[in-house]
C-alpha cells in the first residue's frame, strides 16, 4: 500500500513535486517513511475534521426523536429525508422565512459592502491627499473594537431610527468593513498605475478608471471579499440576536439557536437537519470560492 493509493487523484496539480509521478520505488527509505507518515497524519486529521460533519448529516437522517445512536448504529437503517421538509415547514417556527431573511440580508450586505468598500479602497490606493494615512489608521484601529464595545450605542441608535426589527438593522451595519477595504486596497495596489495614466490620456474620468480599469482587473480579490463577506454575514449571530426580536425578522443563524432551545436536545435528528440547512450554503460558497478564499486570508496578513 503506497501512500499514493490514499491520495485523491481528482486532477489536483502538484507542480512543486516533480518526483511524485515516479512513484515511491526509486526513493531513499527515509523519504518514503516521511511521505507515509505525512499521509497518515493528513488522513487522521482530515478524518477528525470531517467526522463531526459526517456525524451531523447521518444523525439528521435518523427517525425523529430517536435516541442518540451509538457508533455502530450511526448509519440509519432507512434515511428519513423527510426530516428536512419537516424542519423547513415547522408549524411553530418559520424556518423557511429565516432562510429567506438570511439569503436576502447576505446578498444585500455582499453587494453593498463590496461597492462601498471598493470605492474607499480605490481612494486609499490611487490618491495622494492629506490625511490619507490617518484615514487608513482609523479603519485599521476600528477593526480592533469588536461589537462588545459598540453593542449598546448601536442598539440605541437603531431604536431612535425605528430600525429595530427591520431589514435596515440587519443590513446597514454591515455595509462597510475595514477588513474588506484593507483586502481590496492590497489588490488595487498591485494594478499598474500606468494603466490609469493611459486611460487618463484617453480622456477617462475617475469613475471610468474605477469601473473600467480597476474593478475588472480585481475579479479574484472581489471574489475573495465576496466569499468572506457572505460567510461573515450568513453566520453573524450577535447583530441579529440584539437588533431583532420578532420571530419573523430572525435570520437562520439566530433561528437555529431558537430551534435548539425549543427542542433542548430532545430531538437530535431534527436539530441536526436544521444545522445542515444552515451549513449547506456555507459549504457551497466555500467550495466555489475556495481558490480565492485561501489567497484572500493570506493577503490580510501582509502589512
Amino acid at each position, binding site marked *: 500500500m503506497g501512500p*499514493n493509493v490514499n*491520495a*485523491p487523484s481528482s486532477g*489536483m*496539480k*502538484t507542480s512543486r*513535486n516533480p518526483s511524485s509521478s515516479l512513484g515511491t520505488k526509486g526513493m531513499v527509505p527515509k523519504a518514503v517513511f516521511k*511521505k507515509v507518515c*505525512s499521509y497518515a497524519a*493528513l488522513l487522521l*486529521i*482530515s478524518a477528525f*475534521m*470531517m467526522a*463531526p*460533519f459526517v*456525524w*451531523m448529516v447521518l444523525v439528521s437522517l435518523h427517525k425523529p426523536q430517536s435516541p*442518540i445512536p*451509538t457508533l455502530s448504529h450511526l448509519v440509519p437503517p432507512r434515511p428519513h429525508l423527510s426530516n428536512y421538509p419537516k424542519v423547513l415547514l415547522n408549524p411553530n417556527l418559520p424556518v423557511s422565512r429565516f432562510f429567506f431573511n438570511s439569503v436576502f440580508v447576505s446578498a444585500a450586505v455582499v453587494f453593498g459592502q463590496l461597492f*462601498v468598500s471598493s*470605492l*474607499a479602497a480605490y*481612494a486609499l490606493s490611487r*490618491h*495622494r491627499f492629506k490625511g*490619507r494615512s490617518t484615514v487608513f489608521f*482609523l479603519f485599521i484601529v*476600528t477593526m*480592533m473594537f*469588536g461589537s*462588545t*464595545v*459598540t*453593542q*449598546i*450605542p448601536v442598539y*440605541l*441608535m437603531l431604536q431612535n431610527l425605528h430600525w429595530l426589527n427591520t431589514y435596515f438593522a440587519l443590513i446597514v*451595519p454591515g455595509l*462597510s468593513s475595514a477588513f474588506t*477595504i484593507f483586502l481590496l486596497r492590497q489588490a488595487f495596489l498591485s494594478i499598474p498605475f500606468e494603466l490609469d495614466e493611459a486611460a487618463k490620456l484617453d480622456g477617462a474620468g475617475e469613475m471610468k478608471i474605477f469601473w473600467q480599469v480597476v474593478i475588472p482587473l480585481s475579479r479574484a480579490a472581489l471574489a475573495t471579499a465576496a466569499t468572506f463577506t457572505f460567510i461573515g454575514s*450568513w*453566520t453573524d*449571530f450577535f447583530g441579529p440576536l*440584539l437588533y431583532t426580536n420578532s420571530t419573523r425578522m430572525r435570520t*437562520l443563524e439566530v433561528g*437555529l439557536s431558537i430551534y*435548539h432551545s425549543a427542542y433542548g*436536545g430532545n430531538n*437530535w435528528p431534527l436539530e441536526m437537519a436544521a*444545522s445542515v440547512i*444552515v*451549513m449547506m450554503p*456555507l459549504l457551497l460558497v*466555500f467550495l466555489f470560492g*475556495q481558490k480565492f478564499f*485561501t489567497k484572500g486570508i*493570506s493577503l490580510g*496578513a501582509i502589512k
Partner: protein
Amino acid sequence: MAQTQIKQARAAWGFLSLSLLHLAAFAIYPILFSFFISLYHWNILDDHRRFVGFANYLFSLKEPTFLNALWNSCLFTALSVPLGLAAGLLAAILVAQPLRGITVFRAIFYIPAISSGVATSIMWIYIYLPTNGLINTVLGWLHINNATDFLHDARFAMLSLVFMSIVTGLGPRMVLYLSGIMAIPPSLYEAASIDGATGWTSFKKITLPMLTPTTLFVVVTSTIGAMQLFTPVYMMTQGGPEGKTDVIGYHIYTDAWQNFATGLASAKSFILLAAILLISLVQFKMVKSGLEGYGA
C-alpha cells in the same frame, strides 16, 4: 500642479465618503457614546440616568463575578492562543509539503472555520455528550472511564471550549502560516544544509525567525478574538458550571441585556478593551525580543 492636487483630494474624499459615514455611525460615534454611557448609572428600560463618574469602573473592579469573568477570559486566551498557534503551525508545515492531493487536505482542514458558530456549537454539544458522544466513544475504545459530561463538569468545561476553539480555528491559522512558509526563499535552506544544518536546526534558525511577522499577526488577532468569545458560551454552557466558563463577552452581554445594567456593561466593555490593548502591547514586545533572541 496645486490645482490637480486639490482635485485629487476632492475626488479621494468623494470616494471615501460612504465608508467614512459608515465608520462614523457604526464605530466612532458608538465608541465615544459608549464611554459617555459608562459614566452613568443607567437602566436602558426606564431611561432614568444619573451621572456617577468612574463609579461603574471602580465597582466592576471589585465585583467578584466580573473578576471571575476576566480571569476566565484570560485563562481561555492563555490556553487557546498558544495551543491554536502551535496547531496551526504544525498543520501548515504538514500541508506545505509538495504531496499529491495536498490542496484537498488544505480545504478539508479549513472547513470547520467556515461553519456557522451556532451549528458548530450544536455539533460540539453533541460531540461532548456523556452517553454516545464522539469523545466519550473514542475514550471508551481506549478503556478510559467514560460518560464524562464535559460541558457540565467544572473540571472540563473550560478545557472543552479551548479544545473546540483550536479545532475550529485551525484553518485560518494554517493558511496564514502556509503563506509565510511559502514565502521563505529556498536558497536559505540550501545555504544552511551546506553548513550542515538540517531538520530541527534549520527549523529553529530559519523557519521560525522568518515566520515572526506571521506569528505576531496570528497572536494579536487570535487574542482579540479569544478575549471576546461569545457564541459557544451562549450556546453550550451559559457561563456554567459554577461560573467556570463565564467569559467577559458573555458576562457583558448578560449585564447589558438581561440585567439591563447599561452603564455598568459599557464600563466593563472599556475595561475589556484596555485589557486587550495591554496584552497586544506585551505581545508585540515579546515577539520582538523573541526575534532578537534568535540573533536575527
